[in-house]
């Protein structure tokens, strides 16, 4: 009997159609949106991508890192260093930032992979602190108080301000779409099968011949690469960098974790739903300041205790929707004929 494997359910066609429509509408945003809209949307894309990457790391590979700000900051500092010290155009620096981070993530992984579970989490945090403290010692980049991108470099992106806004907006959209595509591709490949096995039962996966260490290592390096590219882009849009902003545990890790948990960890749709909820809350409640942040923490705790699979987990349990063609269904010959 030949066995065929099919991806996805009927709803993923709905997902694909929705995704295509959304992508076209968002790509055309410079036509219908103002400057503020573009900035907000860029920010949303950055968080969708960061949360998706953290989800890949923690939700699938079981690497619960609290130190991804290390790579956001590293990417951002690489971009500023290349621009200020070597005069390299920021647009070229974004992929270069990814390469630098991927290279540096290898020794870091060799070190922090010695720690397990929770200790891994805090170990990654310490590495991020080392990065931050090191960055604040580099006086050529402004030391502890940071620096701005030189005007010549800003103009090198595009001659007019409007064109710069559009360029950076499209880069943000393209980067977020590329991150999602990368994750979908990764999860559909053999590695995806291994990752899901690790997610569901690490020991069993290891016993079934999955090289758990190698897969985790690979995921860690890929995540570092993409996170650094996002970091470079985020700070290119800010035009200013400081060690505290670039290596902020709150902005680049706490928010990202809350987004993923609220949306649904271990599912690709989770971070997208979580980001939308996060920004909806922020646009309405941010004036409350600290109270808003306390509420965010409380919501994350309640979700973790009451619905550990997050909002998307509840939707899947209720309706069985699936927006991305990831789940494998085994079709026997009989089923095919039917």
């Amino acid at each position, binding site marked *: 009997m030949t066995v065929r494997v099919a991806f996805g359910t009927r709803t993923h066609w709905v997902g694909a159609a929705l995704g295509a429509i959304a992508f076209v509408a968002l790509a055309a945003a410079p036509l219908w949106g103002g400057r503020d809209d573009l*900035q*907000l949307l*860029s*920010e949303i894309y*950055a968080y969708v991508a960061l949360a998706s990457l953290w989800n890949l790391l*923690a939700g699938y590979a*079981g690497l*619960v890192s*609290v130190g991804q700000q290390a790579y956001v900051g590293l990417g951002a500092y690489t971009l500023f260093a290349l621009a200020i010290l070597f005069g390299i155009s920021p647009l070229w620096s974004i992929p270069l930032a990814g390469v630098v981070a991927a290279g540096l993530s290898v020794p870091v992984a060799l*070190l*922090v992979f*010695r*720690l397990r*579970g*929770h*200790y891994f*989490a*805090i*170990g990654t*945090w*310490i*590495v991020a*602190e*080392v990065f*931050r*403290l*090191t960055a*604040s*010692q580099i006086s050529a980049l402004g030391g*502890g108080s940071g620096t701005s991108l030189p005007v010549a470099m800003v103009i090198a992106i595009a001659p007019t301000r409007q064109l710069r806004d559009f360029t950076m907006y499209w880069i943000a959209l393209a980067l977020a779409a590329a991150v999602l595509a990368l994750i979908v591709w990764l999860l559909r490949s053999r590695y995806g099968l291994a990752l899901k096995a690790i997610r569901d039962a690490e020991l069993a996966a290891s016993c079934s011949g999955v090289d758990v260490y190698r897969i985790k290592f690979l995921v860690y390096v890929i995540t570092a690469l993409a996170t650094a590219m996002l970091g470079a882009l*985020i700070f290119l*849009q*800010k035009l200013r960098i400081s060690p*505290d*902003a670039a290596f*902020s*545990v*709150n*902005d680049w890790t*706490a*928010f990202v*974790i*809350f987004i993923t*948990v609220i949306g649904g*960890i271990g599912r690709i749709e989770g971070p997208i739903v979580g980001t939308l909820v996060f920004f909806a809350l*922020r646009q309405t409640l*941010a004036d409350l*300041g*600290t*109270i808003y*942040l*306390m509420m*965010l*923490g*409380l919501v*994350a*705790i309640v979700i*973790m*205790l009451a619905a*550990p699979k997050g909002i998307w987990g509840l939707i899947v349990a209720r309706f069985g929707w699936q927006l991305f063609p990831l789940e494998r269904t085994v079709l026997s010959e009989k089923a095919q004929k039917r």
Partner: protein
Amino acid sequence: MRSVVEGARSWEFCNLRKTIGNIDAPSTAQARGPPPPLSWGRKYASKRLMEWINVILQGVLVGGLYAMFAAGLSLIFGVMRLVNIAHGDLIVLAAYVALVVAQTLGIGPLTALIIVVPVMAAIGYALQWFVLNRTLGDDLLPPLLVTFGLSVIIQNGLLTLFTADSVKLQAGPIEVATIRLAEGLYVGVLPLVQFAVAVAVIAGLQLVFYRTALGRAFRAAADEPAMAQLMGLDNRHVFALAMALSLAVVAIAGVFLAVRANFDPSQGPARLIFGFEAVIIGGLGSLWGTLAGGLILGVAQAVGAHLNPGWQILAGHIAFLIVLAARPQGLFPKVRP
């Protein structure tokens, strides 16, 4: 992306920046005594030697505080495999409780311990009973995320109540009292008391863990939770007691933190990291190892700060990473008592 910063403005108070200030720097200036005379030769060499002895001594004394940060962390990890991300924020919370108690009742910080310790222990028991017990299980994520959420809530709660201004707990004349050990070598009475308390806390925990019925319950629930339950232990109660004990230690650490230097709501995460580093340097599961880990961290930071004020915290992190690379099980891993 300007509005990320705007929307999160209050978070700026919560970042770690302020904690890299010199609040943990050993107060060498005070203890160094009179300035060195401008003479060279043997006298100069002995001055330099004294200076280094002084740096290391101050590091050791601060290390006691770090060991106290670490002991509570180590205890709950040993009993229920829980790493409490909010540990540092609970230390800062204890410091604020001590501040409020000392100011309302008009008593000294060390007397205030009589109230702060039971209050923190009660918070610990309730926290474990109502929240954290629900997160325990095979999955690592729930306890991590829930304590992470708690950390954010405590930090921002303290920020709302006490603002971001740093405060300090006054302990009176004991703060400036010093003892002369040798020519040009002085130690503060308060750091000495702090160190003695740290050693006493570690010894006390060791005693509780290996010599009492409570300690037996802790070890039983840690090693074989299901069997412990069958033998009539209520694991939820045992875990809650462990958290209460952990926060009692946190209370002591918090009071010493508050007396030592200025503190503010954003300092929690750095305390967590110092405690964690001490645990890993010392070796998991060994209380005396944790003390040694705290001392090593304290000395590393003191030496770093002496070389360059900007290197203090970095030197501690690097010592931690070196131990992790060379001896991932820690310097003094658990040995059967």
